[in-house]
Structure formats: C-alpha cells, structure tokens
C-alpha cells in the first residue's frame, strides 16, 4: 500500500485545534493549544513528572499482566469445559456489568489506600472482558476444522493446543485490546480516588486543586496519547496487522 497523507483522518484534529484556538481567544479562562503543547513538552522532560508517570505505568503493567494471564486461562477453561461455564458464566457477566471505578472504594477498604488497591481495581475492571472473549473464541471454532483435525489423528489436548487455541487467537486478542482500555480507565479511577500514591492521578488532583487548567489539560492530553499509542501502535499495527495477514480477515 502507498503511504499517503491521509487528510481525512487529520482534518477533525485540525478543526478541533482551530476551534480550540478561537475559544481560547474569546474566553481567557481557556488556555490556548500552543500553551498546552509547550506544557506537554515541558512535562515530558520533567523528572518528578516522569517518576509519577513511571509509577502509574508500573501499576498498569502489573495489573494488566495479571489480567492477561488470569483472563486468558480462565477463558480457555470456561470455553473448554461446558459445566464450568454453566457454573461461572453468569458470574463473569456480572463482573463485566460493573464499571471499573466502582471497585475502588471496596479496594480501599480491603487493601488500604495503596498500590495494591489500584492493581486490584485494574484486575476486577478488565479481567471479565478477556474471559468472555476467550471463551467465546474457543467455543466458536468452526466444527468442520475440528473434524478435519480429527481425521488427521488429532484429539484431546493436541486438538486443543494445535487447533482450538490458534483458531481462537483473533478473538482472544480482541479481548486483550478491550481489556487494555478498561484497565487504563480503572487505573485512572483508582489513582484519582487514592491520591496518596505517587502517580498521574495524584498530579491531576494537585493541579485541579490549584485551578491550574493549563497543566490539567496537559496531563489529560498525555493520558490520551499513551492510551492511543498502545491501542493504535501496539494492538493495531504490530499485532493486528500480523493477525490480519495470517488469518486473512482484511
């Protein structure tokens, strides 16, 4: 494919920034986008900001890894064993119905206002979606493919690992991608409510209390950028494109 300046995707951004500039000119309370941009650049070079960011990213990394491991294993088990799904399926949908932020108060009660509470929030906010996607992926493997594998001598665990799991992979990755977004939200909710932890949430609380709109917006832009980077670059470009070429789902 030819690389081209994709103006259709850029245009809304230009409008947004243009509109923002006009609002900033008319309404002095709103800082201009140029100011925000310079603050973002400043922040990214600031040591104390970077420590806070690293703290948040660390909690996200721990929480998300746990989500991936627990979610995929539980999903594979639920997909493989019907009785387990009958037993736990409704529990998982109940878990999915809960917004991540709703776990924060309970997490504080159980763990105290610390890192553990934030990781617990990520875990409960994002695991359910992985379980559901994985178990459905396992169950939706085309029966014809299974029959073909059986006639070639595959059965039991071999058919599970060599046929069912690879066939379910695109669905599993979909689940992991959604879980990233859910986890990211849960992380922010946790950190905003537990402001004794050194992290992005604490910084946002601080500048909000100081009515420092500029810095507040700069932090929000950074949070959005990180989320977009992981979703767009890692999930879409690196993993998604590879899956699509292999599975032929373009």
């Amino acid at each position, binding site marked *: 494919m030819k690389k081209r300046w994709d103006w259709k995707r850029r245009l809304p951004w230009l409008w947004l920034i243009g509109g923002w500039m006009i609002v900033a000119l008319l309404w002095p309370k709103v800082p201009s986008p140029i100011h925000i941009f310079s603050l973002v650049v400043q922040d990214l070079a600031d040591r104390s900001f970077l420590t806070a960011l690293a703290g948040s990213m660390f909690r996200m990394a721990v929480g998300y890894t746990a989500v991936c491991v627990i979610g995929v294993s539980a999903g594979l088990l639920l997909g493989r064993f019907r009785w387990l799904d009958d037993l736990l399926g409704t529990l998982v949908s109940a878990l999915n119905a809960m917004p991540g932020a709703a776990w924060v108060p309970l997490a504080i009660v159980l763990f105290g206002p610390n890192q553990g509470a934030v990781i617990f929030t990520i875990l409960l906010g994002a695991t359910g979606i992985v379980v559901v996607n994985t178990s459905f992926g396992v169950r939706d493997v*085309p029966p*014809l*493919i299974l*029959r*073909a*594998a*059986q*006639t*070639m*001598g*595959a*059965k039991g665990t*071999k058919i599970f690992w*060599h*046929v069912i799991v*690879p*066939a379910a*992979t695109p669905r599993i990755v979909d689940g992991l991608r959604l879980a990233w977004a859910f986890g990211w939200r849960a992380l922010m909710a946790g950190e905003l409510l537990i402001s004794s932890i050194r992290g992005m949430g604490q910084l946002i609380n601080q500048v909000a209390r100081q009515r420092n709109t500029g810095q507040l917006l700069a932090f929000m832009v950074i949070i959005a950028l990180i989320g977009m980077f992981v979703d767009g670059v890692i999930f879409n470009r690196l993993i998604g494109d590879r899956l699509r*070429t*292999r*599975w*032929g789902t373009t």
Partner: protein
Amino acid sequence: MSVVLEKVSKRFSQNGSAVDVLEDVHVLEEINFTIDDGEFVCLVGPSGCGKSTLINLIAGLELPSTGRVLVDGVPVTGPGYCGLVFQEAALFPWLTVQGNVEFGLRIAGMPPAQRREKAAEYLKMVHLSRFASAYPHQLSGGMKQRVAIARALVMDPKILLMDEPFGALDAQTRRLLHEELLEIWQETRKTIFFVTHNVREATVLGDKVLTMSARPGRIKKGYAIHLPRPRRESDPHLIVIQQRILLNIQEEIAKVVKDEDMDYLVGKIQ
C-alpha cells in the same frame, strides 16, 4: 485396503433423547457394500439422503447404530486411519500451505526435517510447490481443495474419503481437478470413496457408481463402469449410463419427496 459395510444402519433420536425409539430418525438402513483395494467408488444420491452420515461412519467420526464397518477385516472404532476432504477445504487459516500439509505429521510427532520433505513431495503432486509459504486466504477455491487433498494424502491414509469435494468449484476448475485426482489415484493406488450429487462427475471418475435412496438411506443400485480413462463427459457410452443413473435417482425423489418442489430437486441433481 478394502472397506466392507455389513448391515450398517444409523438412527438419530430427535430432541436428543434416546428414550423414545418411535421418534428416532432412520438416516441409514441396511447398508451393505464393499470397496475393493485400490478401487474408485462414487456415491450419488439426493440431498439429505445420508451421504455425509455414511462418510462419517466410514471415517470413524460416528459409530453405526447396528452393523459393522470393516477395514481390512477390522471393525472401525474411531477416526484417524483415513483421509477426508470436504466440500469446503477447511484449511487452518493460521498455517501456511506447507504448515497445513505438515499438520497431521506434526501431530504424529514426526521430526521437522522429515515432515518438510514429505510435505514438499505431496505439494508437488498437487502442483502447489510455488505456493508453499502462502496462507489459505491467498488461494483460489481450486487451490484450497488441492491443499486439502495433499493434507489428507500426506498421512498415507488407507482410504481417501471425499464428501462433494468439488461441489463449490466452477466447471472448468472441476474438470482440471478431476484429471489431477485421477493422476494421483493412478500414481498412489489409493482406495477412494467419492460422494457427489453430480451424476456426470461420478461417471467420469468412478470404477463403480452407487445410487442411494433417501429416508431411510439405502444403497439402491450399483453401476460398474469399465470405460478406459481419461473419459469425456460427452462420451456416448457414458451418457447412456448417466441417463440410467439419473432415471434411477429421479424415481427415488418422486417416491420420497411428494410435497416438495420436484423441478428444483431434479435440477439440483443434474
């Protein structure tokens, strides 16, 4: 390898309950026939007459309700001894063409170098060596079916079962694959059981053509075809046999399906 079906019948209980015997659907009843070693046998019959169930029984994917399926005198108890090719290629989309052909060998635990060599041999047989590293979605329908055939043959099965394998292909591609399949058959001397609803296809390929009745499925009649290969579909001798077979199945449809649209079904068989 010879295959013998002795008084094979298959019933399915409706609503999944095996209790009420009267409610059972007799899909196959009293099937008796023999496929000799190296023989190419075709089976034609109307849709829904139990052709696929019969294939599943021979493949060992299902077990008969009564009677026995014997392969070289030994009753079949499970899958794995025969190659199976479906109407849809059912390739594994996450594996390359090479990976698909190697699949069964890998499951069987053959070392990589050995299975690569063996897969290459069979890919050459189906003229797909150049596409070894392509993924299934990059292939045409005919190429996919050739991969499926290579994937089944590489396991060196005792018998190759084909369930309407060329049904979804255009006439041109189908003719080409008929020629290739006959070449492979003559080269490997495999026993082939080929199910189709296309009477012309059956007469071009088979040593023997069996017709089947529906509900319950029974073998109706067998036609031996002694004409030399390659055969032309328009060969007058073949047309005579085709007409006889068609007549045989049409009366079957007329008998069994009273309230369905006849023209539609007859058209489908031709």
